[in-house]
């Protein structure tokens, strides 16, 4: 077993790999290396900040809110913004169809979207970041099992 946070990250990457057909399975978890043009369009998945509070006193469970950033990388001469939105449609609908991430989470809510562009190279590059807040619960002494 592994931390539920890792299981969530793996689950999201798995469902995006099959569900976001517009990136042809180019879904990377926690990628730290640059993307070459041959790898575009692509999606990267990162887990970021997580906050937690004690939920119950008796059995001592933690309610956790985990931020998961899903970045979409695309390049195109025209329709760059349309392409990014089309990929965002597939991401949102894929996660929406697995709202509890196969029972790992209580909810997976899109909490922000930001889009940026650069026109410095041979084709414009656009990046859309979809941030989901994943709420999940563990006991304090077993963080490998979702409750």
């Amino acid at each position, binding site marked *: 077993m592994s931390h539920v946070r890792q299981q969530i990250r793996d689950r999201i990457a798995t469902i995006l790999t099959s569900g976001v057909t517009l990136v042809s399975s180019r879904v990377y978890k926690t*990628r*730290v*290396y*640059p*993307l*070459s*043009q041959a790898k*575009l369009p692509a999606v*990267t998945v*990162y887990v970021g900040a997580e906050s937690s509070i004690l939920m119950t006193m008796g059995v001592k469970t933690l309610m956790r809110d985990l931020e998961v*950033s899903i*970045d979409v*990388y695309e*390049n195109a*001469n025209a329709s760059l913004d349309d392409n990014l939105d089309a990929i965002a449609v597939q991401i949102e609908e894929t996660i929406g169809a697995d709202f509890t991430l196969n029972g790992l989470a209580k909810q997976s809510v899109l909490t922000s979207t*930001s889009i*940026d*562009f*650069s*026109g*410095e*190279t*041979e*084709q*414009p*590059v*656009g*990046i859309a*970041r979809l941030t989901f807040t994943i709420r999940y619960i563990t006991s304090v002494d077993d963080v490998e099992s979702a409750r």
Partner: protein
Amino acid sequence: MAIPFAADLAAIFNVNEFAAAVTYSGGTINGIFDNDTVPVSAGGFVTVHQEQPRLTCRTVDMPSIAEDQSMVIGGVTYKVRAWIHDGTGSTSVQLEKQ
């Protein structure tokens, strides 16, 4: 004594020296074509590596430069996206691959 910039530029932008022939605006001009791969950051966690085509040529060869004009360099078509005149007779043109 006048500094012979024009003669220097003619030597630099010579296809037998550093320059390439560029099809532009119904004719041919000479320019130095660079196409470095550079990291692009547009807000993601990682950068994207892409080529950055630029053409440096004589300003007098493109008196009516405008966005969306086409250039063919080495058989590849580019569109003019932006340009900078350096004030001494040469111009750097930002290109977009088509």
